[in-house]
């Protein structure tokens, strides 16, 4: 693997020559998803997919810092959103850790090229904050599992080919015990996908229904009934540092400041902007420290909960300032900021609500007694 600074120069040059000039069409449309899939293939062919994945599965074999450098440059270039993000960040790494040799051979190569779109299937209508409340049932039928139930908030569900699912193989109500991770073919019989329209009018996630879906025994990932541990490993990958996040926050703030400058300034706002700037700077410094700790081999701990809390509030405050200054036009369906507005506000919900994150901090870091 190349030297880090040389790698940064290469990435920057490649992105400068290849990132599409405008936004790609909306990935929630058929055309848009196709365009994003094409983009993923270009990235893959250029060697920029799976930066820290082993080369045998199509990755680049880099380290945490290569991954971070790529993420920074990617966001700085304003490149398209990644429809392979779940696969890259946590589904693939979980399969590398827990999958059998056959499973890794079968599934991993198609992931990075976006030949198959992979979705995460954890959340359910009654298992949101309370993941151990999963009810989707996988009954063993002698030679296969038969799955019944429902998943929700499935990102890119409408275009999904495979779902990495957490389902109950043990007794109902068993909480953390008796769960298993299964890979389900979303194109198979008995699977129904219903796109969910969001407050901003577009889709982007889906509900997925399983009606007696047959899942071969070979699609069980990790030990049967011990899926909770697999799921926790998956979440720890999901919670690894994302060097792209502060860059996105910076772009969000820069865009707002641009609007303010264009509107001729807003004297009462200077201090608010300074506050946001200082917080962005702290976010960058924290991310930098975290990448350093990972590079030094420290395990991922509860810091991602801190990032979720700090960054979600910062992002929400940036978009809120926009609305306070420019009014409701920024929330209108045709406004360029509307998707970012809703998405930033969702930052304190998805991937574990702010309440859950505070509990994690209180339990695991502060050592406070539980209720």
């Amino acid at each position, binding site marked *: 693997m190349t030297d880090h600074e040389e790698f940064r120069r290469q990435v920057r040059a490649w992105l400068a020559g290849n990132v599409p000039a405008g936004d790609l069409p909306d990935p929630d449309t058929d055309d848009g998803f196709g365009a994003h899939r094409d983009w993923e293939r270009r990235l893959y062919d250029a060697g920029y997919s799976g930066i820290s994945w082993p080369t045998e599965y199509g990755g680049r074999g880099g380290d945490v810092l290569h991954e971070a450098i790529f993420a920074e440059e990617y966001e700085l270039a304003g490149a398209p959103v990644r429809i392979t993000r779940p696969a890259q960040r946590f589904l693939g790494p979980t399969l590398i850790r827990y999958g059998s040799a056959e499973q890794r051979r079968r599934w991993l190569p198609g992931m990075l090229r976006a030949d198959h779109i992979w979705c995460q299937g954890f959340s359910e209508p009654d298992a949101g904050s309370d993941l151990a409340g999963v009810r989707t049932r996988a009954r063993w039928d002698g030679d296969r599992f038969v799955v019944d139930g429902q998943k929700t908030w499935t990102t890119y569900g409408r275009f999904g080919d495979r779902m990495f699912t957490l389902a109950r193989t043990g007794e109902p109500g068993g909480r953390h015990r008796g769960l298993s991770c299964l890979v389900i073919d979303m194109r198979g019989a008995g699977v129904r996908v219903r796109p969910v329209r969001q407050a901003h009018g577009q889709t982007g996630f889906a509900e997925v229904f399983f009606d007696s879906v047959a899942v071969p025994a070979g699609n069980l990932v990790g030990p049967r009934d011990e899926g909770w541990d697999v799921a926790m490993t998956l979440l720890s990958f999901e919670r690894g540092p994302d060097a792209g996040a502060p860059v996105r926050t910076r*772009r969000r703030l820069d865009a707002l400041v641009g609007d303010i400058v264009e509107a001729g300034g807003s004297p009462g706002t200077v201090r608010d902007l*300074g506050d946001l*700037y200082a917080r962005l700077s702290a976010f960058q410094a924290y991310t*930098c420290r975290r990448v*350093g700790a990972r590079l030094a081999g420290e395990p991922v701990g509860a810091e991602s909960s801190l990032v979720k809390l*700090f960054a979600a509030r910062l992002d929400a405050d940036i978009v809120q300032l926009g609305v306070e200054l420019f009014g409701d036009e920024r929330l209108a369906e045709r406004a360029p900021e509307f998707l970012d507005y809703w998405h930033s506000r969702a930052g304190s919900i998805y991937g574990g609500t702010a309440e859950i994150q505070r509990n994690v901090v209180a339990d695991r870091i502060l050592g*406070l007694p539980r209720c």
Partner: protein
Amino acid sequence: MLTAEQVRLRAPSAEQRELAASAAGMFFRPDRDERVDAGPEGDFDRGRWTELAGTGLLGAAVPEGAGGLGLSVPDLVVLTEQAGRALLPGPVVETSWIAAPALAALGQEWAPALAATLHGDRVAAAVDATLRGPDLDVASYVVVPADGSDLLCAADRLGATLRVSTQDRLERSFRIARGPDGGGSAAQPLPLTDGLRVLDRGRLGAAAYLVGVAGGLLEQSISYARLREQFGRPIGAFQAVRHRLADSYVELEFARSAVWGAACDVAEGDPAAPVAITCASVAARRAFAEADRHCLQTHGGIGFTWEHPLHVWLKRGATFAARYGLRRDLETELGERLLARTGQQPRGRPPRPHI
């Protein structure tokens, strides 16, 4: 921009963690109450100051050849945070960050003054842009920020220009006074140290101390929330308390990173380090404000009593949050910078949704 070198630097090394632990051990004296041990009228405690000098903290940033420890700016951040956590009294930030390195930079002529300062025989202090600073009434040397170059004033040569007032001191063990109005002819111009002016050094040192104070507040509050019971359980089991303390911890950790990052910028000679220092100062003030609010609330009535030490943390934090720039002024400085920077750039667009 992350470089490999930076990223490695920015994860505190094993040595630095060791340094923090040993400083905590040296600075924290459970047998000693910093409030009570100051004289009844809050006089400067020379005995305690000599003890502190003995820890090496005052000369931590002075080169070894000049009698100091020769530590880097990030190392000094580590020590100063522990000093704040232990509420060390007297001009520790002013001496270790500003006056001692200034005396060292002035060369051989000032070597005796430096030696006396590092031994605690003489007190060196500094004032911020409001001309206030700690313990000026006992200081032999006072550093004053000024247009052009910053100045070192020897108190015994200044005579009438050093007008010290201790009227507005906040706590008995930590006295802020109004300093000299200007250097006068006896003042000595100072070079930059680590590429920084005196106010930037003070800002960074005060931010590190303030992070330490906020951390101490939070530690106190966590302990209290574990022990104090109401309704048959520790109050730390109630979400209202848990979530307050978690929020305080989040701000604290990000402020700590910001201070650390700014110190690394200084160590790397980054010309934008003063901006990073200002950002870190705001972050530290945010962290303290959160801790101040949530920790006092967590303690309930007991936090308002003189007997419980919480109020000393609160007052010390308020002191450091007001020195080297009020949060509002620092934010304004940063906001203006952001507006000026953006005015020169092409219009950006917000990022696309991304989960």
